[in-house]
């Protein structure tokens, strides 16, 4: 429940809103280089690990010979998907329940089959080159529209497990395509109430991940009688997922230690990669701290998926949206793209930030071998570019400031029927307008003196995932 009556409710004086030039609590640590990210940790006696990565977009390992790799000087251990302790591990991060690693790769560069632990990364790489891998190369799909066709090769070899967040699909999966349909209200009635209707199509290209720091962790085990039986797991580089990694190894939170605070890309760094999850197991096997780091190329995941969208939006003369008909085709990427990718992300939806309740949202979600789509963005399209586009089209049509259109359509904090304004939100919007010198005009109405067009855009974005991702404001 929003605290509209309490401290954050009707208050109109703000310590931070509308002010700039405020150093963050962590600014000096970051600016001076003291701040350590996962990849920065070096501890005494540390060994290094690297995964075998698939050179193919869709492939399976028939067999792997490790004898030559084990003979490389400096190799400490080689772990394969057939090892019992790996089988017990289970995926700890994104994705529906699955083997932590197995013999299957459904994207190029996927971690597959084998992990090498050695004295340094160069030796790991040499040992990986010395593996005798017999690959079964399978046909792949990298085009979402081709992948949607009946004759397309199957992109995912694993069976999808149901996601705990997603509602049941609207019809059974066929080939690579999962179907989602979330309908609420009365669409026909909503369009009848509209004074205007706009229809538009939009294609969003896949958008590459924004993490500046290659994901890495270093883990070790140490005795700690103060927190009960068994050793503590010390892991650096698990950032917000310290407890999740602890859970993967059956270690309670009070015995899972991490001193590092920093994460790159701020809120984009919370989906752990396998390199950040595997180190506790490897450290246990070799009895030493183990570090595992991705390279930049190995971190080349997509943040947002590719989507083709068709939208039809009805609205009144005031700009109030009365109906939304939304169909899209979305790239669901490789297996385990997000917790939501197995069916769809519409457990959140549809369009839950809007006052409008007459909404049909249908989506074909197509598996491909392009890569991981960590934040698939399927959950709430209106909060992203498609919604912003609708607001701009309404604004253009009615000659209204898009910020006012967005504010008009946004419901209050409690429910879609809540029409109360939220003073802190209003104050943020006004402060933002003032700081930017925001003066909206219709597109093309004014140009720079040399004739060029210019502009700043307002983006309507209330991403539930970012809202619950534990993003720490620095102020």
């Amino acid at each position, binding site marked *: 429940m929003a605290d509209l009556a309490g401290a954050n409710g009707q208050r109109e004086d703000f310590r931070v809103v509308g002010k700039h030039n405020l150093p963050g609590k962590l600014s*000096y640590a970051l600016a001076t280089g*003291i701040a350590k990210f996962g990849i920065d940790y070096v501890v005494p006696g540390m060994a290094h690990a690297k995964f075998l990565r698939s050179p193919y977009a869709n492939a399976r390992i028939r067999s792997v010979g490790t004898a030559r790799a084990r003979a490389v000087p400096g190799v400490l251990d080689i772990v394969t998907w057939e090892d019992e302790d790996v089988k017990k591990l289970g995926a700890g991060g994104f994705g529906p329940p699955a083997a932590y690693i197995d013999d299957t790769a459904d994207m190029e560069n996927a971690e597959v089959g084998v992990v090498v632990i050695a*004295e340094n990364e160069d030796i790991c790489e040499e040992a990986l080159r010395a593996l005798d891998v017999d690959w079964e190369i399978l046909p792949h799909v990298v085009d979402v529209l081709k992948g949607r066709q009946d004759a397309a090769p199957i992109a995912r070899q694993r069976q999808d497990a149901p996601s705990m967040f997603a509602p049941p699909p609207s019809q059974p999966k066929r080939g690579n395509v999962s179907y989602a349909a979330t309908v609420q209200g009365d669409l026909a009635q909503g369009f009848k109430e509209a004074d205007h209707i706009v229809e538009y199509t939009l294609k969003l290209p896949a958008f590459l991940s924004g993490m500046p720091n290659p994901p890495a962790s270093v883990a070790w085990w140490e005795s700690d009688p103060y927190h009960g039986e068994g050793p503590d797991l010390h892991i650096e580089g698990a950032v917000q997922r310290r407890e999740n990694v602890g859970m993967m190894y059956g270690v309670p939170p009070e015995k899972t230690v991490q001193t590092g605070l920093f994460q790159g890309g701020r809120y984009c760094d919370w989906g752990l990669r396998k390199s950040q999850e595997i180190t506790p197991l490897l450290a246990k096997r070799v009895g030493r701290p183990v570090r595992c780091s991705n390279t930049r190329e190995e971190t080349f995941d997509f943040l947002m998926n590719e989507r083709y969208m068709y939208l039809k939006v009805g609205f009144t003369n005031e700009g109030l949206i009365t109906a939304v008909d939304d169909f899209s085709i979305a790239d669901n990427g490789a297996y385990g793209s997000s917790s939501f990718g197995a069916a769809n992300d519409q457990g959140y939806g549809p369009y839950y930030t809007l006052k409008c309740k007459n909404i049909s949202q249908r989506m074909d979600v197509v598996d491909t071998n392009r890569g991981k789509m960590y934040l698939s963005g399927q959950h709430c399209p209106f909060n992203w570019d498609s919604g912003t586009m609708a607001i701009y089209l309404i604004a253009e049509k009615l000659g209204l400031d898009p910020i006012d259109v967005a504010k008009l359509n946004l419901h209050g904090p409690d429910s879609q029927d809540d029409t109360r304004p939220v003073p802190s939100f209003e104050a943020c919007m006004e402060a933002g307008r003032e700081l930017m010198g925001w003066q909206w005009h219709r597109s093309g109405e004014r140009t720079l003196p040399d004739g060029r067009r210019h502009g700043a855009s307002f983006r309507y974005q209330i991403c539930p995932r970012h809202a619950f991702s534990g993003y720490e404001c620095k102020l």
Partner: protein
Amino acid sequence: MESKIGAGMTLTQEAAQRRVADIISAIPVVLTEYRCPLCARVFPGYSGLREHYEAEHAGAIAPIVVMLMLNGKGCEVLIEPHWTLKRTLQFRLGLTGTKHMCDKGVCGSCTVIMDGRPVLACQILTAECEGRDIQTIEGIAADPKWKPLIDAYCRWDAMQCGYCTTGFLVTAKALLDRNPNPTERECREALAGNICICGTYPRHSQAIIEAAAAMSGGGVDG
């Protein structure tokens, strides 16, 4: 009370300056042990390591000892000949302010100053650095002369996640060394080789211009 990541941690400029000074002074000047990178055996002298290589790892290229001049201090490091300066700073000297982003010479996160010029530590072999004057972010942050630059970066909050920030700051210091009063355009040109995924670009020029004014006695408003 608060247990979330980052909660409750505030580091003042003075505390940060002391920490980087401590990090620099913790770097040993001479090596006292020589560890084999292939089997982790430790030897008290370099000759012992060489003999071990000949006996146990014949055909492998032995590590070398390089004398670096870092942040005004000479120090010996034992490295393999193919190691970059970036790798040496992190894995031998504990200087992790020089960041690893692309490792390909395109992002500027690993920028250090060598003989007065900003260079990319991920693209330079440590073996080539002997006798060169190298400054890292730690050396700059520990030097009271550059307090206004660090302050301005923090005051303007010219960082989001902060991963790229030290690379920008080192480049900015090199700019101010050769041009104490840069224009915004000159700042932008100087920083053109630094990438910030979080998109903090406009604030860097603001911070540098403000630091330049403070360092030339012009003061800072507000």
